[in-house]
C-alpha cells in the first residue's frame, strides 16, 4: 500500500484548516491530511517536519489539539527563512508534513506524582499537549503546576486557556516576564524563581521542562535544590536537525540523536552533555 511504502523523507500534503495569530511573531497552523487515510495521532511532545514548498523544511512540535478534536496544531515563532515562509500561508493552502517523530513526555509513567511543567517562551507549545493529556485524567495526578516565563507580557501564549486550567482543573498557573511596565500586575523575574512559590512535593514530583537551553539549565539546578530527583526531570533538546529519522547525524547530541532518541530526554541520562557548547 502506498501509505506504508512512502519514504520517511517524503512529505505528505496537508491542508491548512486554520491559522491562529498567537502574538506579534508567533502563529499556529492547524493542519489536516489531504489523504484521509493518514492518521493524526501523536504523543504529547512529538514533532513534525513542516515543509514550506520551495523554501525548506523545519522541525515543529505538535501543540494541540485538545483530545478528541480534529487536526494537528503547530505553534510557530517566525525567526527566519522557513518559519517566515510558513507565516505567509493562509487557510486552505498546502504544507508538506513528515511525522510525527521523536520521544514523548512521560504521561503514563507520571501517574500518582505531582507534576511541574516549566516553559520558557515558545517552549509552552510542545508542553500543551502534555497538559491536555494530564487534564484529561486529572484525578490520576497530584498537584499540577505550570510555571511559564516569557520576555514581555505580550509574548505570553495561550492566555485564554489559563483560567480554565486554573478554575476547572485546579492547576497552579504561575506566570512571569523578564521585564514589564506598570500595566502588568503579575510576576517579574526569570521562570526558575517561580519554583519556590509553587506548592508541590519535590520527592514525589515529575518535572517537564521546555525552553531555551540556558533557562533549562537554571531550572534544573533550582529543581535539584528543591530535591526533585534527577531521574524525575525531563528536558527537551531542540537543536537543529535535518532528516528527523536518525540518518544524517546532523543533530547528534553525545551518543544520542535528538530527532530519534529525543527531543525529550530524562535529565540523568543526558546530564553529562547538557550545557556543553561544542555538542
Amino acid at each position, binding site marked *: 500500500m502506498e501509505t506504508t511504502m512512502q519514504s520517511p523523507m517524503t512529505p505528505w500534503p496537508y491542508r491548512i484548516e486554520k491559522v491562529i495569530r498567537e502574538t506579534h511573531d508567533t502563529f499556529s497552523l492547524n493542519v489536516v491530511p489531504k489523504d484521509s487515510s493518514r492518521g493524526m495521532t501523536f504523543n504529547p511532545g512529538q514533532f513534525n517536519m513542516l515543509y514550506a514548498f520551495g523554501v525548506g523544511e523545519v522541525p515543529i512540535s505538535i501543540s494541540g489539539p485538545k483530545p478528541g478534536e480534529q487536526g494537528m496544531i503547530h505553534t510557530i515563532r517566525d525567526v527566519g527563512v522557513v518559519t517566515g515562509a510558513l507565516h505567509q500561508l493562509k487557510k486552505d493552502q498546502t504544507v508538506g508534513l513528515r511525522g510525527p517523530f521523536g520521544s514523548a513526555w512521560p504521561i503514563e509513567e507520571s501517574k500518582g506524582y505531582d507534576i511541574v511543567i516549566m516553559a520558557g517562551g515558545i517552549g509552552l507549545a510542545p508542553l500543551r499537549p502534555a497538559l491536555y493529556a494530564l487534564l484529561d485524567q486529572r484525578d490520576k495526578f497530584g498537584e499540577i503546576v505550570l510555571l511559564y516565563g516569557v520576555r514581555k507580557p505580550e509574548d505570553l501564549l495561550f492566555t485564554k486557556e489559563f483560567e480554565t486550567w486554573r478554575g476547572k482543573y485546579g492547576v497552579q498557573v504561575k506566570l512571569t516576564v523578564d521585564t514589564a511596565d506598570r500595566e502588568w500586575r503579575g510576576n517579574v523575574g526569570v521562570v526558575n524563581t517561580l519554583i519556590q512559590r509553587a506548592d508541590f512535593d519535590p520527592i514525589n514530583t515529575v518535572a517537564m521542562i521546555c525552553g531555551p537551553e540556558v*533557562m533549562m539549565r537554571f531550572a534544573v539546578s533550582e529543581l535539584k535544590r528543591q530535591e526533585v530527583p534527577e531521574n524525575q526531570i525531563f528536558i527537551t533538546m531542540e537543536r537543529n536537525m535535518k532528516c528527523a529519522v536518525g540518518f544524517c547525524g546532523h543533530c547528534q547530541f553525545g551518543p544520542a540523536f535528538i530527532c530519534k532518541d529525543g527531543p525529550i530526554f530524562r535529565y540523568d541520562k543526558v546530564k553529562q552533555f547538557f550545557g556543553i557548547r561544542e555538542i
Partner: protein
Amino acid sequence: MKSLESILGNHPFFENLAPEYLTLITGCASNVKFEAGEFIYRQDEEANNFYIIREGKVALEVCPPGKKPITVQTVSDGEILGWAWLIPPYHCQFDAQAVELTRAIVLDGRCLRTKCVEDHTLGYELLSRLLPVVGRTMEATRLQLLDIYGNND
C-alpha cells in the same frame, strides 16, 4: 491574633532560627500594610527597613530618564524585600511599589545592625540566610540580561 514572633518564626526566611534570636529580632519588628499602588520606598531614600513579606506582591522598579518605569523584579508571599539596610551607605537602589494589598513585618535596619554587631553569631545567621537570596537574585539578573527568549536564543 498571632504574635509578631510567631509570624516571623513561620516565615521561610527565619525557618529554624533559634528561639532566642527570634526574640531578639522581634524587638526590631512591627506590622505594616501597603495598599495597591502605594510606594514602600523610593530610590536614593535612606534604607533603614528590611521587609518580611507575609502576603501580597511588590514591584521593584527603575525609572530611566524620560521613559516609563520598568519593573525588573517582583517579590511576594514568603519572600523578603530590601537588603540595603545592611550595606553602607544604606541607600535604596530601586523604587518599591505594592502591586496588590501587601502585608509585611518591617524590621528596623539600625536596630538589626546594632544587634548583629553585639552578637556576631546572630549576624552570621542573618547573613547566611540573606546571601542565598542575593545570590539567586544575581543569577536571575544574569539570565534576564542574556535575553534568552530573544531571536538568537
